[in-house]
């Protein structure tokens, strides 16, 4: 079960992911990102402060948007990954393709520079 919160702050859409992202709940994450892109958000921050576990299906959601973000020139920054989750991102190599920072403030700073 996950819960996704939405906040728009200074033109930046902040998605807060709360809970575990597994095969079934990854659909909600997918919908949230799809919606954000459809609404035309240009800057998206995914705050994973309360994300405790992510399965390969969850990683698949992030991965599947990499090329679309690039082609639409949408900036996305992921922040607040816990150690374990960050390790999962690193092993898969996603940290090379997605901007990952430690805090939301940092993410806001960096998203305007990208």
């Amino acid at each position, binding site marked *: 079960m996950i819960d996704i919160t939405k906040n728009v702050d200074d033109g930046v859409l902040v998605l807060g992911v709360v809970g575990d992202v597994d095969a079934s709940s990854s659909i909600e994450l997918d919908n949230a990102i799809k919606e954000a892109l459809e609404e035309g958000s240009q800057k998206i921050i995914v705050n994973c402060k309360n994300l405790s576990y992510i399965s*390969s299906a969850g990683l698949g959601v992030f991965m599947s948007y990499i090329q679309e973000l690039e082609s639409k020139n949408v900036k996305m920054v992921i922040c607040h990954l816990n150690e374990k989750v960050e390790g999962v991102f690193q*092993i*898969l190599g996603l940290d090379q393709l997605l901007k990952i920072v430690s805090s939301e403030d940092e993410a806001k700073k960096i998203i305007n520079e990208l």
Partner: protein
Amino acid sequence: MKISAKNIIRFSLATAILSWLAFVFADLNLLFGSLRNVKVGIPDELPNLSMDLFIVALFFYYRSRTYRVENINFIDMLWRVFATGLLATVASLVIKFIFIAWGNTKLAQNTFVINLSYHINFGLIAAFLISTFIVWKRLILYQKSKLLLNGWQVFEYIFLITLVLDLVYPDLDSGINVVLLVILILMGLIFSVNLKWVAYLNFRQKWKSILLILLVLLYLGYFIQNLWRFAANNPLTTDILQNTFFIALLTFVFLYALFSLLVILFNLPTSSVFEQKLEEVLNFQRLSQSIQTEKSEDQVYEILLQSACSTVFADAGWIEIIQNGDSHYQSKNIDETEIGQVKELISSGKVKGILDTDTDRSLKSSTQQNVLKGTKFKSIIAYPILVQGQQTGTLALLKEISDGFNKEMTDITRTFVNQAGISIENFRLLSEALENERYKEELKIAKEVQKSLLPTDLAANDDFDLSAFSEAADEVGGDYYDALRVDEDRIALMIGDVSGKGTSAAFHMSQMKGIFSSLAQMGMGPKEFLIHANTALSTSLEKASFITASYFLISQKNKTVEFSRAGHCPTLYYNAKDKKSVFYEDKGLGLGILRNTNFEQYVEVRTLQYKPGDILVLYTDGITEAKNGKRDEFGYEKMQEILEANAELGAEEIKQLIMDDLYSFCGQEFVDDDYTMVIVKFK
């Protein structure tokens, strides 16, 4: 020794006939003696004694005969009483006719002839009374209780006592005979109210019974009158109308016949109710058994409609069946245009929502009665048919009379509808179970097929031993490993893990197998292999799917392992010389993540020199991420520790140790992720 029923019948019949003959012979002899005043040398008690024997033998004869009929058929029993009576009456009429024919001849005046014909009459009447007595007994004891059974036994014994006492006190007026007679008649009256069998007769059977019993009463009257006339007009040696036993028997047989007749007569008007109740029970049974015998839901609806219509005497009815948003009708004595008219009337009239499929009202107040103006029907009831809380149809019953459905009818219809709902629910559950069973079988096959995709012969060679383990959480999984000899020098080895689990992962896993089989034999280096694999998978993988993989090319000539990691778990390598192991976390990116040429920027190749005793451990994240009850992960360190502590052992043993440890860590046999491990030990 047990005497068979057949023998009892034969024996008792023979005894009855012989004792009757003895009775006649003795009686006539005594008559002769008294007329001529000679001693005939026959004791005075002999006639009565043989008569008693005759009666007892008759009792046993009829009792054995009746008991042979296992399944009780009331009409058959009454018919038998009637037939016996008819036989006796015809025989006695024949005798009477002969006497009339003889007229005033001497023969007709002869005391012997008169007494003989009286004895024949007596024999016939006795047979009729005893056989009827036995049938009455069966009817009275149809639904017996212990008390009733004991009471009846006492009744029979008193009859026997009366019979025996008659030898000692032949006088009807003697005190003891009067007492016994009163007791027997009172008991007979009490037993005569046991008429439960009447309730089980249907209307036709009741009429038949009335007719048969009336005839039986008629015989009785005729017999009594006949005996009485004999006694009044002629000097008789033995007058059985002076016999206590006979009077009691006659009275009882007569009383029970009379009671039966009256009760059946009074039950005639209500018998249709009883029949209807019986019909309801049978219909109900049909409905509840339809699940076993019928082949489709439509047939359950069919039975419901027929049963409901016939039970409440509806003139017409229909069932609207709702399936996948569409609805169709099953109807009886009404066509769809009429159904449309009735529904139209209801929806436009005051009673709204009656056949509305989704309003709460129709579900709660399920019975609705209304006068339907404009059609021939004057009353209607309708019920929703619910299966697992969902309405699957509506049953509507119509009558051409107003207020045609009473409470009983609405109650039974509701019961029928509920039972039909349960039948359909069971039916669906059964088909679902069968369907699931089929899917399970399919998955079992898929599992076998997938097993065959994993190698059994792991490229055996002189330089290293190889041992592998793989298990899926579901029937099929997304883990993959393979080994292939490229040429005399080189062996290709890979491990892969498809994102997600289950069937979709299994399909991608088989794609990976195809890619490995075709690319590895070309002797590609790890980087080249992964780039080609990524290109191949880019067009075939689902949008959000990817595969992590590690590819190894081992050269026996150069003693080198050349490998690359495509987002897969870091390879664990044990160095025998340092007695230390290390995870190689080189740069890498999962296959299918970047579906363009940029992928090659993310592939790194590492080459190691292997020495004897070195160990290569390949695994999937199912192992490192396996959790115990406290949600702790099995982790990297644990695997590393076991490896370092047991590095002296062979590949197979090390693999087994790690897997054992993993299972005991998780504390259950249940696997919730795909586990795969390959161990290569260099020699």
